[in-house]
């Protein structure tokens, strides 16, 4: 039995509050699970003119992944490097509290680094129905036959700016500006209710 009915899964939840953890919509096994419980350290790397290839190479060697200057996610055990524009990379790390400092030491004058730890909420979406859910708000083709593991895109979903990538066969990661967490979660719940959606959040901010 679902916590929140499929008739109106957002009934009674204020627009400016993030919907609470729980099961939404259709009962039975959830077709989509959504978690915002992972809080990686995040930094933005912008290569200075002429250094994009060099920066990509340094990032790849430092984090043990294959980084190219294109819209791809290079996924390692502890770190992920995502291309968001020419010479622009978002770096996520599970293990580097001073990620920006580490990157400054690594890249020196070749890039400008800004810490983004609290800028984004990390949505981890899993389940076979994820492409059907996201398709309701996306302008790009996320069909699993086209958008493969390691593919990344910076785009809009439900009119909200998103950087997303496919982590593995049935897992997608979406970064959304923190101030839009409530709105984006409402989109996910409303669009995923027909498949049954399990939401897990409620971690306190890093502060």
């Amino acid at each position, binding site marked *: 039995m679902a916590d929140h009915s499929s008739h109106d899964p957002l009934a009674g939840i204020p627009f400016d509050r993030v919907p609470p953890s729980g099961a939404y919509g259709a009962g039975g096994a959830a077709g989509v699970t959504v978690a915002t419980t992972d809080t990686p350290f995040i930094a933005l790397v912008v290569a200075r003119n002429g250094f994009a290839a060099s920066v990509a190479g340094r990032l790849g060697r430092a984090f043990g992944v294959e980084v190219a200057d*294109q*819209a791809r996610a290079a996924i390692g055990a502890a770190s992920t490097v995502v291309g*968001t*524009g*020419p010479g*622009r990379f978002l770096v996520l790390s599970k293990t580097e509290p001073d990620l920006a400092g580490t990157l400054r030491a690594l890249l020196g004058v070749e890039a400008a680094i800004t810490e983004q730890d609290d800028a984004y909420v990390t949505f981890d979406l899993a389940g076979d129905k994820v492409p059907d859910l996201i398709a309701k708000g996306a*302008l*790009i083709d996320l069909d699993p036959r086209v958008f493969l593991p390691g593919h990344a*895109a*910076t*785009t*809009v979903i439900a009119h909200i*700016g998103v950087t997303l990538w496919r982590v593995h066969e049935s897992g997608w990661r979406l970064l959304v500006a923190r101030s839009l967490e409530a709105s984006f979660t409402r989109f996910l719940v409303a669009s995923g209710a027909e498949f049954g959606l399990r939401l897990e959040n409620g971690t306190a901010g890093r502060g």
Partner: protein
Amino acid sequence: MRIPCPYCGERDAHEFAYLGDATLTRPDPAAAEAEQAFHDYVYLRDNPAGAHEEWWYHANGCRQWLRVARDTRTHAISGAVAARVAGEPA
């Protein structure tokens, strides 16, 4: 209308902001006729029926300026290159 961004791939026009004519060149402010040249540069626009080159900014994507070749009669877009790259829209 979809614009083939060189970095992002084909994207919906809603992701972009439009600026305008990409064929203009900023006049030399030190030239003798600079005042008239700047008036033309800022205010006067051709309105071609057919092939046109335009600036589009990929605001909800890679955040790069593109030079886009569009047919104003059909909206057919034949190519786009990053503004930072010299040359014709491919």
